[in-house]
């Protein structure tokens, strides 16, 4: 019974990772850039949701929408200002820029509002625990899991069935050829960032609802964990991010359950190292031989 409860704990923790990892993996899949600022867009999303709820007095869903829209705009701005000028630069230059953007957002936030935490109001969504075979499942974690699943399916649909999705896949395959075929590469990449960042915003609001406490540096650890989750599932593969996130959550819960709660964060990164050594393409990835 205790084991079952720990599994449920792991799944609810993992669905947050999955929600963040979806945006990560999507941006990587299209632009081949690990957007380290993703965790911080997630943080900004949490704060925008918080201010919409407390200052503008809105409900959960309008706040979620505002947060997603604002984060989408923020994502596009980041891409246009920081990443676009580096599109033909080396990978490492873009990576370092991403880390810089991440720090800028974190400390910019602290500069604007201070570093003190805020608490999401607890009465927006009924927080009841559902008893199932002696296992307590909170309704909020079901909501988060449901949100991640719906967003994953939506994302799969956008990427595989729509025109913009087709453009994204073309850009991902060969940027120059796509341009020659008349695809507007800049707009396609912007759309990718907009969707990815909107997902981060949604994750931020969901996180605030579930864990109550938000603060300017809250995006760092979940961001890194989501990165691990994305790599675990196979970076660039959307269902992979979902499975990777859930798996990572369950692994962490079981590590804590075994009495090693202080090693929990360490284990997440051990998982990253192991997957990079033994299956660099991730669980869902196919080994693609590099063209020489």
């Amino acid at each position, binding site marked *: 019974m*205790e084991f079952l*409860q*720990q599994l449920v*704990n*792991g799944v*609810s*923790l993992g669905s947050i990772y999955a929600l963040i990892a979806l945006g990560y993996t999507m941006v990587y899949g299209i632009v081949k850039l690990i957007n380290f600022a993703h965790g911080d867009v997630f943080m900004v999303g949490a704060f925008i949701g918080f201010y919409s709820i407390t200052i503008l007095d809105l409900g959960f869903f309008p706040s979620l929408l505002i947060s997603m829209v604002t984060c989408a705009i923020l994502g596009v701005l980041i891409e246009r200002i920081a990443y676009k000028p580096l599109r033909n630069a080396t990978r490492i230059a873009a990576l370092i820029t991403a880390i810089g953007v991440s720090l800028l957002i974190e400390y910019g936030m*602290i500069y604007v509002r*201070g*570093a*003190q*935490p805020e*608490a999401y109001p*607890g009465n927006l969504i009924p*927080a009841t*625990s559902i008893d199932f075979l002696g296992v*307590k499942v*909170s309704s909020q974690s079901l909501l988060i899991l449901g949100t991640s699943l719906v967003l994953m399916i939506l994302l799969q649909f956008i990427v595989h069935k729509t025109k913009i999705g087709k453009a994204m896949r073309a850009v991902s395959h060969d940027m120059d050829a796509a341009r020659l075929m008349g695809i507007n590469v800049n707009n396609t990449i912007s759309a990718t960032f907009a969707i990815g960042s909107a997902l981060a915003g949604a994750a931020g609001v969901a996180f605030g609802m579930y*864990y*109550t*406490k938000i*603060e300017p*540096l*809250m995006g760092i*650890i979940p961001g890194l964990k989501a990165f691990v989750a994305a790599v675990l599932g196979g970076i660039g593969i959307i269902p992979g991010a979902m499975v990777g996130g859930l798996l990572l959550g369950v692994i*962490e*819960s*079981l*590590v*804590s*359950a075994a*009495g090693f*709660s*202080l090693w*929990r964060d360490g284990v997440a990164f051990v998982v990253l190292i192991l997957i990079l050594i033994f299956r660099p393409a991730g669980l869902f990835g196919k080994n693609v031989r590099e063209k020489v």
Partner: protein
Amino acid sequence: MRKKKLAGVFMSFMMAAGVLAGCGGAASTSGGKDGDTIKIGANLELSGGVASYGQSIEEGIKLALEEINKEGIDGKKLELVTFDNKSDAAEATSGTTKLISQDKVAAIIGAATSTNTLAQVQIAQKNKIPLLTPTGTNPTITNKDGVLSDFVFRTCFIDPFQGTVAANFAAKDLKVKNAAIIIDSSSDYAKGLAAAFQTAFEKNGGKIVKEEAYVAKDTDFNAILTNIKSANPDFIFLPGYYEEVGLIIKQARALGIEAPFMGGDGWDSPKLVEIAGADPLNNTFITNHYSSGDSDPKVQDFVKAFEAKYDGKSPDAFNALGYDSLYFLADAIKRAGSADPEKIQKALEETDGLQLVSGTMKLDKNHDPIKSAVILEYKGGKQEFNTKVDPE
């Protein structure tokens, strides 16, 4: 060319260091005398993770400053120089260096937490400037491995006392036998309280059935709480800080853990109720330095003055200890008859029977005050006075 440039940078760095060192030396002799004012530094957590502690202490200090400066000390006024250490130990260290070398203060109040105070101890000792922490309760602040830090003082009681009071209350008043402990393993404060609790609780015939740990900034505690739940304790000791404590209690109640929780003064923040919610906090207790519900006239006068200055806001323990810290210092400066840091240190050491809001001040040989504690209970999101415990 490049080598020359590097050498230049190195030279200018060395010169800057020389100037700074010179300042430090000068400060220890001239010690904060500046005409008719005596400069007091305050190195506090005004932003960052535990900002609520630092801000509360500052409010208390400012009220005391106003009252003391009405008459002055032997015709001199106190001047407060505040430094925000951003709840960060490294910032706290550089803040103290700045207060001593640039502002040339006669004494320093701060910081709120044990970790951030420990980060300043060496600098205060080296420059011979009294350092007074209002709320740093870890024993090693004043006495590390049997060596007394003679320039370091505190206004509050120490961790072992808080842990012992909590253990006695659990065993004798709540009559519980099986306790679990959840420790913030990144905090000296939490570890100190937990160790004292365990010793005293076992002495009373109780048993620790489970011990779990977390680190500051964790947000998901469901896994360790599930472990706690299966051990089925009838009491849980949780000596952490309010950010994590709030989340732990909220998640514990959602998992169906109904046992009472108890912690120390680290819980004492309005943010705790916001994070945990009022209902989950029912059936929880804390040990604290002071309660605004105490009927002592000294306490009631302070509550009235505080409410008048801060729009009816009821003072918490951090407000009271900030207020007491400046009075503690002012009393010593008055008896020393000088703003010389070394004379202030001597006078602080000799303090005996000074009446403060948080109890009567007397120091033991480790510079630790011997004074009473109160136990508060959370009911409907409000702290209610339960009992007052005197030192044995």
